[in-house]
């Protein structure tokens, strides 16, 4: 296991190292610069020069990069040019919202997938399958921005039972019941596509498992189909489902950009858009690097969980 993890670690680190430089250089290659956005149209050239020097942007690129790396090493993410304040705080605030939203969506998607696919395979009924498959395809085919607006129209405007957007005023912990209501629409909207994709995958995986010889063995022992699905097929489909879950988590994070915009959810999506459009280098850099890091970590994590779930990898070798 550790061996397994160690084998994957170097390539992950290489990706991160390359990414940090790539991001740093790219961010600076984008036309437009933070000084002009900060100074606004009416600033004098001297004012702009002063701001430029203030931000350290008059230094050579490599010096800036080394400086940034040095900061990162001290876990200092720098100060935002535009929004002001520590990048660390900004990112932390946004990250909490995004993570809560994404994880809730992931949870909803996984639950829906679990229930739907188990139902489909256990019941194995033509009509149930057709209905699930239809709902599934539709859920994948409906763009997020459409479902989001339809949800708002339905549940916040026509039947005003849920908030149209925004985060719970008292945070997530103080009033969980209120928080849940604020979370519901955006999370459902975000979860829809991923849930459908997961359901599709899991149903197919379960069906494949149910065709495996060990299932025939179990059935020949007089174990009921339902029990086999629940205690055996599901357990076997789990490792690969975890991998897909990892991929879906990435997709969800990407989708969050849009959902956050629709539901005015102040997460990383809005932050990154704002940071890029303001050419807020320290913030953009950190956010992009974070994106890569999350991706790399998820990959590592799914690999490890996959390995852990599969005794063939976990234990390995022949005992005899």
């Amino acid at each position, binding site marked *: 296991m550790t061996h397994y993890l160690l084998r994957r670690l170097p390539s992950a680190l290489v990706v991160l190292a390359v990414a940090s430089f790539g991001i740093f250089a790219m961010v600076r290659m984008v*036309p*437009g*610069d933070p000084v*002009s*956005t*900060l*100074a*606004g*149209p*009416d*600033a*004098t050239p*001297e*004012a702009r020069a*002063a*701001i430029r020097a*203030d931000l350290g942007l008059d230094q050579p690129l490599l010096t800036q990069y080394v400086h940034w790396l040095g900061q990162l090493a001290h876990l200092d993410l720098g100060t935002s*040019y*535009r*929004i*002001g*304040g520590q990048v660390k*705080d*900004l990112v932390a*605030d*946004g990250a909490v919202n995004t993570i809560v939203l994404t994880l809730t969506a992931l949870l909803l998607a996984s639950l829906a997938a679990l229930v739907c696919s188990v139902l489909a395979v256990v019941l194995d009924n033509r009509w149930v399958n057709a209905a699930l498959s239809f709902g599934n395809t539709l859920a994948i085919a409906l763009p997020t921005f459409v479902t989001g*607006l339809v949800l*708002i129209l339905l549940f*916040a*405007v026509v039947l*005003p*039972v*849920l*908030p*149209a*957007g*925004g*985060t*719970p005023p008292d945070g997530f912990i103080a009033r969980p*019941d*209120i928080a849940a*209501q*604020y979370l519901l629409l955006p999370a459902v909207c975000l979860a829809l596509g991923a849930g459908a994709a997961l359901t599709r995958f899991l149903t197919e995986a379960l069906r494949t498992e149910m065709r495996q010889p060990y299932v025939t063995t179990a059935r020949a022992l007089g174990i009921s189909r339902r029990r086999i699905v629940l205690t055996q097929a599901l357990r076997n489909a789990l490792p690969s489902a975890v991998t897909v879950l990892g991929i879906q988590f990435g997709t969800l994070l990407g989708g969050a950009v849009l959902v956050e*915009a*629709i*539901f*005015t959810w*102040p997460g990383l999506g*809005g*932050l990154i858009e*704002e940071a890029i*459009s*303001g*050419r807020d280098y320290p913030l953009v850099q950190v956010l992009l690097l974070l994106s890569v890091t999350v991706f790399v970590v998820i990959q590592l994590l799914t690999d490890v969980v996959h390995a852990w779930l599969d005794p063939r990898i976990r234990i390995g070798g022949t005992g005899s």
Partner: protein
Amino acid sequence: ACSSAVKEASSGSEDSGPTDGGTLRIGSTNDIVPASIFTNSSDAANTLIGAVYDSLIDYPQDSLDPQPRLATSWEVAKDGLSITLQLRDDVTFHSGREFTSKDVEFSIKTWADPTWTVQLQRTAAAVTGFDTSDPHAITLSFDHPLSNIFDLLDMLPIIDSESFDQLKEGKAYVGTGPFVFTSWTPSSKLEFTRNDDYWGDEPHLDGIEVDIVSDPQAQVSQLRSGQLDLITGASNRDLETLGKDDSYTVTPFDGSVQQIYVGADLANPDLQDVKLRQAIAYALDRQRIVDDVFRGQGTPINLPWPDYSPAYDAKANETYAYDPDKAKELVSQLGSHPTIPLAYSAGNANYEAVAQIVQSDLEAVGIKTELQPVENSQFIKQLIGGTFGGLWILQHGYAHYTPSTLAVSAYPFNADKNASHFVDKQYKEDADAAWERVDGSDSGAVEIYQRLNKDLLDNLFLIEIALLHFTVASSDQVHDLGMSKRGELDLDAAYLSK
């Protein structure tokens, strides 16, 4: 106990006169940017400045007649080179410190610092002498008369020098105003509570919460679902729809106006011929833009001034009335010319719609344009660098102040350097003359303004389209809203009915 987030967010309404209490929740499109907190560039920043700070004087909505605020009275020297203001002596900052003339000096000097890039920086910098010997009076002196000194005094917030470092970082905003800043969560919200020691009438509201909701559509949704009480960023069409609904109030404010215009970069050889610019001016169906895009909340104009401005000239304002035939004729005199780029800031629905109408209007008279949505950051850079190379669409402000403020402060009109690359001796002379006067509204001033109007109409480096009113929508529980000329919500008297 589980309760509904929606129910908690809204409560029943029945107006029975001003009542105390309640937090007003305002939806704002843009978050504040600490580095440019004084630039009037975001609705959240405007709300913050209006709530937390006081200015020395106040202009009423529809005139340029200064009214006392922190200054109780004032006197301008005959030569126009200084002004003495008497200050209130019962004012304290939110920190408890007493307000004195030193604070006025500090505030003006802050605005004169180019790094804050405020529009009136040149005017603030023109204030060269400060006599603060009396803590409750101050004398400001200038190198040359400043016709727009009251504009500065109206716009300038009195800031606390002690907490200035925190202001730079967006951590504290300490003023003398009716509300106390309590917190800012970047890209999420700003919170304020009532200033119980306010020198004026105590506000009715317990507090204000500004939610950053960047999508106009979402603002409307949240207003409708009762999560917000007041929104500042609704599109004009949504405002129109909300206005028809009894549960909502749509309030247009006369005093604070913006002008939408088509800019022309004279570096483009095709645009150098004034005939083409005139053709454009004639080709624009301004009334249609006002009606269709701004749903009637505006006035077609040729010159930027609102009707109470000393520079206002009703006749001149009709110089380029919609006349496509005349435009066609002008175009036919020009011969062929290539397609002209028409830039606007991407993602803004109004600009996009106006740009498309402008394009269509121009095409109808034989002027081909290509729309170029430009990302905002780059748009500003192009504006500063004067690199549009064609036409652009944008809004400007400051025409509702003393006319000279526009010419010396608003970037597109700057006689020294502007995005149009328009350099004209006459224009510069007239602009400076308007500025360096004692009085900005006497008959001599009006004469200069007429010359300025002629410069603007003859040269057409900016082709005005319409004058737009600032309009907010609120739930019917919100009452007695006000708006300063600066475009800041005035919530001193506002209250929420239960």
